[in-house]
């Protein structure tokens, strides 16, 4: 019996930030990262039938994303991207070309990879946000990251200010605890 189900409607809200942070530290370009996340969603949609429910939805999406990132590096290394970047990296003849191994192969070193993941702050934070109950996560994100006014959020969710502060307090406590384990 599969416990984990799949629901593409919620993907963007639930995972896009997490996947985006995961990608950005690896490709270092906002546009490319967004494209890769989008492609991951498409690929996920296409292979939904193959999802067995053994892993969580998010783990599954991450594994697709990893392949997408590797593909991305393959692509830029295969043609003219290679020449373009090499010039920037080093100009003395000796070490020219060495960067390919250093730069590209490293992030995908399987042993180091899981270690690195938790050390990336953005990923860690969005990971923790993902563990909060949905309403808390939404409100915490709006308040803390996107910086909305208390009043505006109260109106959107139809709650009182003291209600909001209780939610924020719970979210912050949970976040601190979660980050304590995964980050500090």
């Amino acid at each position, binding site marked *: 019996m599969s416990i984990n189900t799949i629901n593409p409607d919620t993907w*963007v809200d639930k995972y896009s930030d997490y996947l985006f942070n995961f990608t950005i530290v690896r490709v270092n370009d906002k546009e490319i990262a967004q494209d890769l996340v989008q492609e991951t969603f498409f690929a996920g949609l296409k292979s939904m039938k193959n999802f067995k429910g053994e892993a969580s939805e998010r783990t599954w999406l991450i594994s697709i994303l990893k392949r997408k990132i590797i593909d991305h590096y393959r692509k830029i290394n295969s043609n003219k991207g290679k020449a373009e970047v090499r010039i920037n990296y080093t100009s003395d003849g000796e070490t020219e070309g060495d960067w390919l191994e250093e730069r590209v192969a490293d992030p995908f070193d399987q042993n180091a990879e899981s270690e690195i993941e938790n050390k990336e702050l953005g990923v860690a934070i969005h990971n923790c946000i993902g563990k909060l109950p949905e309403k808390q996560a939404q409100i915490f994100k709006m308040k803390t990251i996107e910086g909305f006014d208390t009043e505006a959020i109260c109106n959107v969710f139809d709650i009182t200010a003291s209600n909001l502060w209780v939610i924020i307090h719970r979210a912050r406590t949970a976040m601190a605890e979660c980050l304590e384990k995964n980050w500090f």
Partner: protein
Amino acid sequence: MSKNNKIFVSCTDANHFCDKNQYKEATFWEKVKLNIHLIYCKACRKYSTTNNKLTKLVKNPKVISIDQSTKDMMKEQLKKKMSEG
């Protein structure tokens, strides 16, 4: 300030002020009361420290999220693909 003019506040209130303070929404008087409370309350001092740390981490420029308009666009494209498939 008729009702809330006590200098010593409960831990619940202190935490509330501390949360507010993270978003720069605490009033001056609330900050004073919070700080007086922190002098003698170890538990709240601890909460206050982690809370400050959390704020600092979240403010870190490395923590980015995709802006809402891009997200909406992504959703739309995803929907389109779904109806195609």
